[in-house]
């Protein structure tokens, strides 16, 4: 655990050593603001809730989280520092979790910077605090799942662009599998109901939705945690197979 923290701290320091982190934070805040107020009609809804804020997160993260995750391992592979890291007395698990945690903390920080949105809602009316809290939890978990997936794709290549595109595509599939317009088309095409439901059950949207409504279901938590664990585990396998 101590080693994972040391690695996480180094990684996080690396984010802020370059302007990339600040550019990311600014773009993230601008886009959330734009989608919430312009596309989501925050004011016209005439209700004090953050529905129009959270509903965009699966889409926003799809582009922004891979931008954080793509360098996770691709950069180590490119610079050759992987050789340094894996000859230190740390286990691969500590290294992988450490680097993942750094990215997740960073995304959490970005999410924290959207808190003024909450204040706005409270200023405008009396929103229900429950959905806001579970919405944030769900959003954070979803960011973690996306991050673990882009970390996984970044372990396959030293090329960050390839890593980025691959993880965007995987995240897109995860979103679309449960996106009503897509599931409706599938049903219209005559796909069996059970299969569509199963696919939708794999989708982040499906699990994030109930959280936006204020429901903290254990199954949703288990879903996100297993997605993260699976991607982290695969990262370990991929990194090992690269060296075999």
């Amino acid at each position, binding site marked *: 655990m101590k*080693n994972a923290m*040391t*690695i996480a701290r*180094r990684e996080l*320091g*690396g984010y802020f*050593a*370059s302007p990339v982190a600040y550019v990311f934070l600014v773009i993230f805040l601008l886009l959330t603001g734009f989608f919430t107020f312009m596309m989501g009609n925050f004011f016209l809804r005439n209700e004090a809730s953050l529905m129009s804020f959270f509903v965009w997160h699966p889409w926003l993260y799809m582009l922004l989280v891979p931008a954080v995750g793509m360098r996770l391992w691709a950069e180590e592979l490119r*610079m*050759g*520092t992987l*050789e*340094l890291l*894996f*000859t*230190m*007395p*740390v*286990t691969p698990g500590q290294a992988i979790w450490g680097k993942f945690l750094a990215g997740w903390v960073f995304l959490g920080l970005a999410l924290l910077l959207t808190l003024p949105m909450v204040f706005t809602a409270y200023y405008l009316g009396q929103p229900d605090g429950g959905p806001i809290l579970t919405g944030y939890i769900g959003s954070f978990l979803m960011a973690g799942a996306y991050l673990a997936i882009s970390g996984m794709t970044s372990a396959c290549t030293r090329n960050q662009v390839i890593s980025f595109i691959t993880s965007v595509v995987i995240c897109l599939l995860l979103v679309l599998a449960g996106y009503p317009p897509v599931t409706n088309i599938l049903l219209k095409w005559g796909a069996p109901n059970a299969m569509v439901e199963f696919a939708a059950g794999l989708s982040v949207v499906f699990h994030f939705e109930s959280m936006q409504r204020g429901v903290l279901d254990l199954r949703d938590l288990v879903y996100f945690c297993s997605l993260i664990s699976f991607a982290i585990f695969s990262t370990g396998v991929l990194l*090992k197979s690269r*060296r*075999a």
Partner: protein
Amino acid sequence: MIKTIEVQKSFGSSLAVDRVSFEVKKGEVLGFLGPNGAGKSTTMRMITGFLPLSGGKILIGGHDIEEQPLQAKRLMGYLPENAPAYADMSVLGFLRFIAKIRGLKAVEAEAAVEKAIATCHLEKVRFQIIDTLSKGYLHRVCFAQAILHDPPILILDEPTDGLDPNQKHEMRQLIKEMGKHKAIIVSTHILEEVEAICTRVIIIDQGKLVFNGSPDELLAQSPQSGQISLRVLGRKPEELREKLKDLPGLGTVSIKEEKDGALAATLSAKAEKSLPAARVARLMQEANWEFDQLYTSKGRLDDVFRRITSLDSAEEVAK
């Protein structure tokens, strides 16, 4: 301290390291030679636990690198090829990170970092971002990283690569000094380095071990080893040949006339015979001939190296 037993590594269908066994003890500096692509880096990556083995076994201070990787890794410092380091960190930040990940406590860590900075002469760049360092400094930063926790074992992959002659000399002195109480493996393709710092040499070619012995034993395999060079002034070639004829143990003589009229002769001994230079000197003095050069050649490493490695490659092609 280091023991490799029949170590093998294959990448896909090609065998990069083929049943290599050797041992390094405390107080030894092992020179690891071989042409490019011979498998030196691959072997070192297996020793340091970066690459999994395809076969065989490696013991580091008694710990199997694959079964007790953490214990084994604690005993080693490693300078990888091309000296990788986190480009976005400062030299000081990087070394502190390494100290921490090596498990040094705060006070210890600070002392270790300062000592490594002093040893590698990094005072001037301690706050500089690694990305902006010259190649020589980058190499020293990575070397500092390797010696930070004062490990009993050092694995150095081309440690003098990219250094200027002064830095090279200094690095060699440092390795030699540390070799007295550590077990060190140094890979290189610079042959003088072997004579300068190594107590033992192994050569691999196409993944196979082709030599394991002392630098002197390696030199002895040179055709030039034991040859005597003599430069005589103011004589004719026939005269010299006549003079040398009765020298005991003499095999072949080749004589060349140089621009200034002097004669450069190369004398080699008959097989299994020795040809002392002192005997030649006495001959010259008794005859009262003038000569300005007389020495016994120790043999040339590059010749031996070329012979050992290309011989083996030729066999490989023939198969």
